[in-house]
């Protein structure tokens, strides 16, 4: 079956439409993720066949990653882990009445990032895969370390931010140093009597939606019953209207963020969340107005969304060129191939050219469906903020609980994790600790530990981090630049604050 035949197949096209819409819904509901959407539909690929099954799963993937921007912007709750950085500027924009504008910016940036990564996937997959294998434990650790330096850049108070980030790393290491990650299978940092519940540690998603979702609800509960917002609140005055002129001067940001997302995607084991974090940091540290980031800067939304959608094509590069998934969602896609008895490896593309073309086609169409659907449904999405909070927040809490319970196929401790970290997040705000560096530390901590320990185990030389390769040297340049920029920014903020007082 050639490309045209796929395009004329109503079943193929229908699955892409349905998958994209369902993915958007999953991504848009706090507690539900793109990974969950793909996991739910994976068994369907038994009966759909490989090409149609993949069309459905890839569309769910694209829709799910993108759908996460809706609650991130309107509620300050990231729909997916990769949308965390979208909350930094999207939510402040929504709070000052620019919700619609922020949503439109994010959607266009998402499509741009997705298309950048698809171009890279289609034309350069084997070349990129060959480049990806040059990244050993050392280079992967340095990338994670580079992403961790963003903690300083994102902090209002650098010391408190770094403390919060280190606390996040510490809590992420509780549990077993898992043998499936090359660990020794021993448990560590578990309080006495808690081994039964904590041997697997705290799961990421319940922590994330607890910190962002439950904390927001508790803070709102403290305020009592404020006046609900109305639809007018999301678009106040002509100055807040969306116009394509916002993207003027953002071409570089779009291309860079899409490329960073793609690049992080091609490195197995680095983790999807690092894509948007690195894109956001790059945008902030190279901006002429870094002080505007975190306060509702459109460039921050563009970087975050182009970065996380750049991941979608990038993560397929190692999957289809080496048989190695680039992130947790593409790990599920391997299941679709396996269930159909198809080998995925370095010969996949050349031996399955029809399937390969169909996959690229499905992702391009899915990106376009996502653009049209979300762009014109924004008013409907935005209605969520007009829902009275006494109705909205209990519903969000219910979805968070359902999401936490189902993410690991029914583990009740994940619900407790959600509630514990909800209260913990609320206390963090009271204690003036910083949530963003904490969660970044929590996400990246386990990978940083594994790659650090494995680097030392494998090479037996602590200087290997500096001497391993030109890639390592280049990453050190980026790390030092990021730290220096953070320090300069922090000092400038402090002197601005002093001048105001």
């Amino acid at each position, binding site marked *: 079956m050639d490309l045209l035949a796929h395009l004329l197949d109503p079943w193929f096209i229908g699955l892409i439409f349905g998958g994209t819409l369902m993915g958007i819904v999953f991504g848009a509901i706090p507690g539900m993720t793109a990974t969950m959407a793909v996991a739910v539909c994976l068994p369907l690929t038994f009966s759909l066949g490989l090409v149609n099954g993949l069309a459905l799963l890839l569309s769910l993937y694209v829709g799910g990653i993108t759908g996460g921007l809706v609650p991130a912007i309107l509620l300050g709750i990231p729909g997916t882990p990769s949308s965390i950085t979208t909350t930094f500027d999207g939510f402040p924009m929504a709070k000052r009445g620019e919700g619609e504008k922020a949503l439109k910016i994010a959607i266009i940036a998402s499509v741009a990032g997705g298309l950048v990564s698809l171009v890279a996937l289609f034309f350069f997959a084997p070349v990129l895969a060959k480049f990806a294998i040059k990244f050993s434990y050392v280079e992967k650790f340095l990338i994670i370390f580079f992403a961790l330096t963003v903690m300083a850049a994102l902090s209002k108070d650098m010391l408190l931010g770094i403390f919060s980030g280190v606390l996040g790393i510490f809590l992420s290491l509780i549990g077993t140093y898992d043998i499936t990650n090359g660990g020794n*299978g021993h448990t560590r940092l578990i309080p006495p009597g808690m081994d039964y519940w904590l041997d697997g540690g705290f799961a990421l998603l319940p922590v994330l939606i607890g910190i962002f979702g439950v904390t927001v609800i508790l803070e709102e509960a403290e305020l009592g019953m404020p006046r609900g917002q109305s639809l007018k609140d999301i678009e106040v005055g002509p100055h807040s209207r969306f116009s394509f002129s916002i993207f003027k001067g953002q071409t570089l940001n779009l291309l860079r963020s899409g490329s960073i997302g793609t690049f992080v995607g091609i490195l197995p084991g680095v983790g999807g969340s690092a894509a948007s974090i690195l894109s956001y940091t790059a945008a902030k540290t190279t901006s002429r107005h870094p002080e505007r980031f975190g306060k509702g800067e459109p460039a921050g939304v563009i970087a975050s969304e182009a970065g996380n959608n750049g991941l979608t094509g990038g993560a397929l590069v190692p999957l289809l060129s080496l048989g190695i998934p680039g992130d947790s969602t593409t790990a599920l896609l391997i299941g679709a191939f396996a269930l159909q008895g198809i080998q995925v490896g370095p010969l996949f593309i050349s031996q399955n050219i029809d399937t390969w073309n169909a996959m690229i086609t499905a992702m391009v169409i899915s990106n376009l469906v996502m653009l049209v659907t979300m762009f014109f449904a924004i008013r409907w999405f935005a209605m969520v903020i007009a829902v009275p909070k006494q109705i909205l927040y209990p519903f969000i809490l219910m979805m968070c609980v359902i999401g936490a319970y189902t993410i690991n196929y029914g583990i009740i401790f994940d619900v407790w994790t959600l509630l514990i970290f909800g209260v913990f997040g609320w206390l963090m705000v009271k204690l003036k600790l910083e949530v963003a560096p904490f969660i970044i530390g929590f996400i990246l901590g386990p990978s940083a530990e594994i790659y650090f320990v494995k680097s030392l185990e494998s090479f037996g030389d602590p200087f290997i981090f500096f001497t391993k390769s030109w890639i390592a040297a280049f990453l050190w340049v980026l790390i030092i630049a990021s730290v220096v920029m953070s320090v300069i920014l922090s000092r400038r903020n402090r002197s601005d604050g002093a001048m105001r007082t």
Partner: protein
Amino acid sequence: MTISRRTLLVAASAAALMAQPMAAAAQDLPRNVRMVIGSSSTGGDTYQNASILAESLSEHLGINVRVDPVGASEAFKALARDSRGTTIMMHHDQSYLQELYGIEGSPDIFAETIVGPTISVNPGNAYLVPADSPYQSMDDILAAAEAGERVRVAIQPGGVSEIGFTAMRNAARLRAPGSEANIVPVNTGDQADKNQAMWDDLADVINGSIQANEQFTQLPSDDPTAMRFIWITATPETLNKAPAEGLGATSRDDMLAYAAPAVSVPMTADENFTFDKEFFLMFNPETDPALIQAIDTAMEEIYAKGAIQERFLSSFFTPQYRPMAEAQEHLQSKNNDYETIISDLKSE
């Protein structure tokens, strides 16, 4: 002809009975059964085998069997919590090997669960070397260790990946006592990590599988990612049950050339080491024996029909049903054999 209400009722009842021929056998089974598996991946062989069995059980018994990939630790916890028979577990040899290798928190499955029937075998457990490796055979590797050369083997410690490594060290010890110290582990994580260890020149040999690595063996030898099989641990009996065309460009005959007896990794003076990665069920020890028996009987009937065998073979697995009693004896015997090898190596 007039149709009375009673006639309609009888007809409807008969239709319902015909639609669910196994309802009688399954009447004591819960309507929903959760099959937890010892892997958290949906892309691995455990999920694939579990899915095939779950679908067949669902169809045959008229119940809903759902596969939950929760990972070994959570799966054992879920099994221990539920004695009603609504949770069953499927895993492979890793479940007892972990305990033999002393992995923290690993239960003794023969004491803490009821080991159920075996399901299938993945014949793909293999060891590979880079395409340009000086080692052409396992004999070369053992000879290198004997000559004092360090041979680094990338494995995931504490299970199926390590058992072949243990066998290599045992074979080196039999050949030249003390030379086993030259076969050293490189502890990695999943298959991607093992491959990367080879490409980074951190490992001379890696554990892998026919399914995951076969395409790398078909690459031109100057490709930096190209590999060669050097040992497939499956028994020749299991490999002979695989389709003759094999997998990818590697035929069954090609595979047999890398397995015993063509490749010799001695376990004792007169016996080669072989390892079949077998999938089997486990039950909570307090579950009603009638429920367990109902599942065992259902599996016997499913395998007697023959359709499930085709499903397994098409995914390059070997169907291997052993009734519960036979399976328990077989797996206990395997456990004892490996325990001897592991403890002999530890004691030196």
